């Protein structure tokens, strides 16, 4: 009931393409879904987040598409650049202090 699943585990796309990272969850009480970006040797940093009342959130070249009925969401990275190469974590939270984290997608952007 508490799991957050991410796919694929790793993804390689060419520079300029759109990278699509997927996330699904089981607990229908989750209402907050942040995506964090992590570079090697650093802690994760918040990239973009969505609440379950919305079905889409855009920020620069990053877009979250959210499907409450299907309990899944995706992160689209438009016009991807080598500097976007990182590990991306999807997480889910409800009204307490805990976030449940997915296992991450390692994204490689080839120039």
């Amino acid at each position, binding site marked *: 009931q508490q799991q957050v699943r991410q796919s694929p585990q790793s993804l390689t796309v060419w520079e300029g393409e759109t990278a699509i990272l997927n996330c699904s969850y089981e607990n229908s009480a989750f209402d907050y879904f942040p995506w964090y970006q992590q570079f090697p040797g650093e802690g994760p940093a918040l990239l973009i987040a969505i609440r379950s009342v919305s079905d889409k959130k855009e920020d620069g070249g990053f877009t979250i598409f959210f499907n409450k009925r299907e309990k899944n969401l995706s992160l689209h990275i438009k016009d991807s650049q080598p500097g976007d190469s990182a590990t991306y974590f999807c997480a889910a939270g409800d009204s307490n202090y805990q*976030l449940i984290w997915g296992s991450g997608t390692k994204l490689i952007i080839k120039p």
Partner: protein
Amino acid sequence: GGIITQTPKFLIGQEGQKLTLKCQQNFNHDTMYWYRQDSGKGLRLIYYSITENDLQKGDLSEGYDASREKKSSFSLTVTSAQKNEMAVFLCASSVGGADTGQLYFGEGSKLTVL
């Protein structure tokens, strides 16, 4: 802006040893967290604290102790290091709960147990 400082950055210990990790934040945030990150896995919450002297157990608290003596600092103790254990421990802080806004993370403390 603020910063989360974790010390030490690298920690090597022996099996059975008690090891302590420290975290300082200058955001003036109320809530602080300790997460464990294993290779290929998501972050797992060990302890969190919503104010000075408060402690709340996460899903992974067994084998760990924590202490929040003041608002700006949060320490984590591995009570008995396990042989061949290797993980990164991440400290984070936030204004309120993790579900209400951004978590700010430190760079991590990498633990190796010989």
